């Protein structure tokens, strides 16, 4: 029960009692309450004329860091004896220390500032309004209002920068880029040798080979470097997620996807994103900074869910992908996931799988928990699962699929480049026309 109601109730109770019992002394007891209520009504706020502005010094903050929220309140009306400013903080944000409330007095033309910090998990949070409760000093008369002060705060996962990932899709675009296009032309990588044609620059002549052939000169060909279409597929099925209190395998997958998208888009490629879960979310391939933001937004909203109809990777909407493009799948490689790779290969896609190791992740989490009794059993089970996973990876590699087995405690960059180094994908061949 709030204060005016308590005071009013006591006042009327004593008044009625005094009148009913015709006791003047009891009636006299109502005097302090009447004066108290009267003072409140007399000095209470009449009309609120307030202006509120919300300032976010940074509206994109890394997860784990604190975001500062500042609210400025200006009173363009009468004196306000007590003002309670309550910011309607969106759900999911954790307050770091101070509450988002401020109690102050606000004279006519006066200003007040409320500043507090929040922490959040990955995602976008929209602030809507600020609640104001103004009252007199005794708190009898209250005026309430909600002022709109919308702003968006984004908590981004930390996105580690990657060195260039060497991919070789079957098809490239006409624009210059970093990807080897399987076509001869201007470039840096040696592609082949052909007979000299007038106009070829002299520094490209292969003198050693030309010496061995009478009256024939040969020119070195280099491989054209072009941009390509890349489709990133993030597995957001609940079955792919492993969560231990604050740690989540899916969060690592999101960071990896964001890093890859950032790297590919920075190189000028056309990148699309498919978040594969209950309702697969497709971000159409595009270029540039704006598209990077689009992908970022899609990744911010990504969450694991029971995939229902899309529980199996076989339902992947392949027809949406640009023909003969590079598919980069971020997937923990579950038992039933292997068949999709055969299909993708059949359609002419080049496949790279970044696979956050779920067994290693789970093993570390369980080992670190205090469960010594069953630790040995867990180790045996983990070993069996590891062997099964190794076999699966081996089988896929034999199919010509490049797989990065990423143990999340090592950096993604190191995992990618150590794997790519061990399995060279390109094979340069020399085409030599027989001399007649």
């Amino acid at each position, binding site marked *: *029960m*709030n*204060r*005016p*109601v*308590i005071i*009013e*109730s*006591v006042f*009327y109770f*004593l*008044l*009625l*009692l005094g*009148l*009913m*019992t*015709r*006791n*003047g*002394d*009891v009636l*006299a*007891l109502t*005097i*302090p*309450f009447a*004066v*108290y209520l009267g*003072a409140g009504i007399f*000095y209470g706020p009449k009309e609120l004329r307030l202006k509120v502005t919300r300032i976010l010094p940074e509206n994109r903050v890394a997860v784990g860091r604190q975001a500062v929220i500042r609210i400025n309140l200006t009173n363009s009306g009468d004196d306000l*004896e*007590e003002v*309670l400013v309550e910011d*309607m903080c969106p759900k999911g944000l954790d307050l770091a220390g*101070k*509450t*988002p*409330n*401020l*109690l*102050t*007095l606000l004279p006519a033309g006066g200003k*007040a*500032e*409320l500043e*507090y910090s929040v922490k959040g998990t990955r995602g976008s949070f929209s602030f*809507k*309004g600020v*609640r104001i409760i103004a009252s*007199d*000093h*005794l*708190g009898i008369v209250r005026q*309430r209002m*909600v002022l709109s002060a919308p702003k968006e705060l984004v908590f981004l996962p930390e996105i580690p920068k990657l060195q260039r990932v060497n991919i070789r899709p079957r098809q490239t675009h006409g624009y210059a880029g970093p990807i080897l296009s399987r076509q001869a032309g201007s470039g840096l990588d040696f592609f082949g040798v052909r007979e000299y044609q007038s106009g070829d620059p002299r520094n490209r002549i292969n003198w050693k080979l030309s010496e061995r052939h009478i009256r024939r000169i040969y020119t070195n060909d280099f491989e054209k470097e072009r941009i390509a279409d890349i489709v990133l597929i993030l597995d957001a099925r609940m079955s792919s997620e492993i969560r231990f209190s604050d740690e989540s395998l899916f969060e690592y997958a999101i960071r990896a996807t964001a890093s890859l998208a950032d790297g590919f888009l920075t190189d000028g490629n056309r990148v699309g994103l498919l978040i594969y879960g209950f309702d697969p979310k497709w971000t159409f391939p595009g270029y540039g900074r704006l598209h990077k933001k689009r992908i970022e937004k899609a990744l911010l909203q990504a969450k694991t869910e029971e995939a229902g109809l899309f529980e199996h990777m076989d339902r992947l909407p392949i027809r949406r992908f640009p023909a003969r493009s590079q598919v980069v799948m971020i997937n923990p490689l579950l038992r039933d996931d292997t068949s999709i790779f055969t299909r993708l290969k059949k359609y002419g896609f080049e496949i790279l799988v970044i696979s956050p190791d779920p067994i290693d992740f789970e093993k570390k989490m369980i080992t670190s928990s205090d469960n010594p009794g069953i630790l040995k059993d867990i180790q045996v089970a983990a070993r069996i699962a590891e062997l099964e996973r190794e076999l699966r990876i081996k089988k896929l590699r034999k199919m010509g699929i490049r797989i990065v087995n990423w143990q999340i405690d090592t950096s993604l960059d190191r995992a990618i480049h150590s794997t790519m180094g061990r399995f060279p994908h390109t094979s340069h061949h020399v085409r030599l026309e027989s001399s007649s």
Partner: protein
Amino acid sequence: MMRNLQSVFIGLTTVAVGLAYVTGHLENVALVVVLLGVFWITGHYKGWNWLGSMMFFVFVGFCTVGLYFNLSREWLFVGLIGALSAFDMNRFEQRKTMAGMIKRGHDMEKRHLFRLVAVIFVSLVLGIITASVKIKIEFGAVLTLGLLAVLCLNRVTVYLKRENKDLRDFIEI
């Protein structure tokens, strides 16, 4: 300052109401009043916020009942003013705790106290005046005043409803 002043008002209420019962030869009740007063002060220092409103009602009750036992109305009046002041300060402290962040808090406290002191002063003056005034009320006047009180109670109900509606609006927003 507010905290200590609240204890002073609790003490004042206890002493005033206790004295009223002692002078009326109801020492046992006075002992209960003193024990309750000690409990109120203890609760106040322990930070039991719920106790403030409850003890306010209890002491208002003691004051009202005391009048029907023809106890000293001066002491009871002082006790009632003390209880009201302690209750007011308790609520003010609660508001400050709930707010978390307070700016110009010292200024606000000072102004609040001035207002409270003014209320106490006016109440005492009016109390003294009413003590010397005697009005005979006829049955008809009592009935009229009773009806007026009922109408006022109705206003309380309307107020309560409005408060709840405001809260609903807030929740919807």
